[in-house]
């Protein structure tokens, strides 16, 4: 079987597995969407039971799963209890924003982490290397939510950037260029938070893999032939060190949808994060399951892209050569 076929089969199995486990997990979690209404003294249990029946929540798990699969095959991914609409459009309208945020963040994260990791490895033990060690430890040690809040507070106090949302409320009145600037301004803070939190880990990995490559004899050879340091790092070391980095990149691609949940919630970014988190806590099951399926799809795609990138970037893999004979 070729790689792609194997991968696709695995992907389908994965999606099936994820959906089954999602249903089991949601079954395990206590409470249901309508439970919040129980606290309201003015709503009767009969009403709640009626609503549950209306949404088929009183059906056995297998029946619900069957219905969901049917709906998933119609590309609806189930029906949101809270929003009273099919899940897929609900998700998609927000997924676009999530992608905008996470892709920007990812591009920046890698754009920053790669050179930094390279530099730190090249000047091992130097000031930058130490600074990176300390700063990345700081970023890893402090919970993301605290980092995010601190940055938000700074931005709010000094009026550096808007502190939430995706566009200003007068967005429609702006000209095209102003609209772009407006989105960028709103994007800044969540992106900075994401970049900080993500790069802490990536810089370290990049540094480790670059260190490994720096010792390779072809790097010594290139150095001996008078290739300048920067050129050596970017042209000669980086493409090789990229291999482990690409696996990591695969992770970040795979985590595109799910990775920014917290930041989206804190910054009020209108992405999947707030929707799915809200749905999780309000037990709007199908939105959660839809969100998970969505991110599982991304996970598959991300890992696949990473593997393909590996093939593209590493001619040894690409040409399927190696140790024959």
């Amino acid at each position, binding site marked *: 079987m070729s790689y792609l076929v194997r991968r696709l089969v695995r992907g389908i199995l994965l999606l099936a597995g994820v959906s089954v486990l999602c249903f089991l997990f949601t079954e395990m*979690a*206590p*409470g*249901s969407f*309508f*439970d*919040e*209404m129980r*606290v*309201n*003294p*003015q*709503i*009767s*249990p009969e*009403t709640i039971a009626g*609503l549950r029946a*209306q949404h088929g929540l009183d059906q056995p798990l297998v029946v619900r799963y069957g219905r969901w699969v049917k709906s998933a095959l119609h590309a609806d991914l189930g029906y949101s209890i*809270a*929003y*009273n*609409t099919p899940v897929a*459009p609900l998700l998609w*309208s*927000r997924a676009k924003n999530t992608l*905008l945020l996470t*892709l*920007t963040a*990812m*591009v920046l994260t890698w754009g920053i982490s790669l050179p930094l990791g390279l530099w730190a490895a090249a000047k091992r033990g130097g000031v930058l290397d130490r600074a990176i060690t300390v700063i990345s430890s700081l970023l890893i040690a402090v919970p993301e939510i605290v980092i995010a809040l601190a940055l*938000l507070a700074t*931005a*709010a*106090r000094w*009026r550096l950037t*808007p*502190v*939430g*949302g*995706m*566009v200003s*409320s007068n*967005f*429609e*009145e702006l000209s*095209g260029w102003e609209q*772009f600037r407006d*989105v960028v301004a709103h994007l800044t803070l969540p992106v900075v938070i994401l970049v900080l939190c993500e790069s802490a880990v990536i810089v370290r990995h990049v540094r480790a893999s670059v260190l490994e490559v720096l010792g390779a004899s072809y790097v010594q050879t290139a150095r001996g032939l008078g290739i300048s340091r920067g050129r050596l790092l970017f042209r000669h070391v980086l493409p090789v060190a*990229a291999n482990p980095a690409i696996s990591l990149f695969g992770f970040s691609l795979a985590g595109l949808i799910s990775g920014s949940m917290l930041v989206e*919630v804190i*910054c*009020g970014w*209108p*992405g999947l994060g*707030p*929707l799915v988190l*809200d749905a999780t*806590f*309000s*037990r709007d099951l199908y939105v959660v399951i839809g969100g998970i399926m969505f991110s599982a799809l991304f996970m598959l795609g991300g890992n696949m892209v990473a593997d393909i990138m590996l093939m593209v970037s590493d001619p040894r893999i690409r040409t399927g050569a190696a140790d024959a004979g």
Partner: protein
Amino acid sequence: MNVIARLSLLVCLLAGVCVAGASSAENPAPENPGKNEELQRVADTSGRYGGHLTVGQRAEPKTLNPVIATDAVSREVIGRLNADLIEINRATQQTEPALAKSWKTSADGRIFTLQLRRGIRFSDGHAFDADDVIFSFAVYMDENIDSPQRDLLIIDGKPMTVAKIGPYTVRFTLPRPYAAAERIFDGLAMLPRHLLEKPYREGKFAQAWSLNAQPSEIAGLGPFRLKQYVPGQRIVAERNPYYWKVDRDNHRLPYLDEMVFLFVGTENAQVLRFEAGETDIISRLSSENFNLLAHEGTRVSSQLADLGPSLEYNFVVFNQNDLTGKKLDAIARKQVWFRDLKFRQAVNAAIDRDGIVRLVYGTRGTPLWGNVGPGNKLWINQAISHPQRSLETARQLLKSAGFSWKTNGELVDGSGETVDFTIVTSSSNAQRMKMATLLQDDLSHLGMQVHVVPLEFRALIDRVFQSFDYDAAIMGLGGGDADPNPEMNVWMSSGTSHLWNLGEKQPATDWEREIDQLMQRQMVELDYNQRKRTYDRVQQIISENLPFIFLATPNTLAGADGRLGNFHPAVLDPNTLWNADELYIRGGLENAGTR
């Protein structure tokens, strides 16, 4: 790397997608009141037209359908787009005419005849009349729709009936006398029959007026009408040019051009964005955030309001539910203590309520000894005693109930079992978590081993309402209306929120039986003083028998941009937006917020 180049291209493309949006159109100027319109004049209001108000909401509304909306944020938006027949004035806590310009109550209090305003129109220009009222109630009462409001309209298991008497007259018949029945009408939005009858007939009512509905499909009688919904971001509502209220100078309300509901996600974000000037109004502030905004805020100007005690009451409830057949033997054993009044009294005596007010509410709160707090001026029983914290009293009570102490200070009951129980509370509510920690410490002075277990909200609800798998819980109730009627389900032994012992077939104790009778009586009693006396007695019984051990109530705290006029926050929900039609921006057409 090539890939990165491609990705950045994708980013640009996506940005393009998101940037492309509709261009805005100018709002129509408010139309002068016509002759045939029976408008309501708000005598003491004046303001100036223009501007928009941005409100930060902690969550995204789920629907714009008033009949099926259950969550607070949806209702907050819906409330601005719709109007009721009779309203509760949040400032006075009294009812006043709205779509019904007047009403008459029959002597036995069972028949309400409402005169509707003539000549007023829905926000799409379509006229409003009795048919709309009849249609609305048909929908609310439809069993297949399971509207949360339906339960309000069912009294003693029988629905109230509605009849059209004339084009502008409707009559409501209650199955039996019902005190303050007119208050029910607040919160029952009148629906446009011309728009909703079709989906209703087709059985698709629940799907109607979802967030994705076009503005043209939605019409209401509220001060604003839907202009735009951006998923995950905001709802923009624009002035309803046909709104039925005018100000002192006969200018048609509302003053604001637009209201923008921003979905900010969290309480933190709500505060941050208010602080940054991105939103203009904020409600349900915690005392810490209130202090933050008061002391360190960077807003150019803001008006913060501490409205004093709210209607919310926080309490500890011990699990006294009937656990037979529940396989919860460990809890059943502990219920011997929980059912012992002296035990509860001891707990009550040991609680440092002042500490709660200081540490949890930063002094912006009030200790509570009963279910009606000082915020509810009409109904509080001032005679209820406020005993000071006394560990000595608590120890005496425990001793007299047969408890004793081991040498290491641990409390044991008569049979030698260590008093050890858990308090569950919602992990998303920082205040109640703090109360639990304080309580734990207070009770440890009595030798009780108390464990605090924070639970995610629905998990908590599940335990308290369904599985009864808990020892004690800290919860909060109230806030909806000042009237005793909404409390029926809490205090009636058969009530759905009779938390300490849910689903009783009959009252388990004499005092519960007495409360049942008193509550029934106050419900049919039409005279305020008579009702007050009855309800005072209920409060008395509760404070003596401690089914709940009351802790404290937070103050209602709200804030708004300094340039917002007619900002009159109230204790009742919605604290800040109840008079949205009267809010205006001082000093110009531009919004005060920085954009």
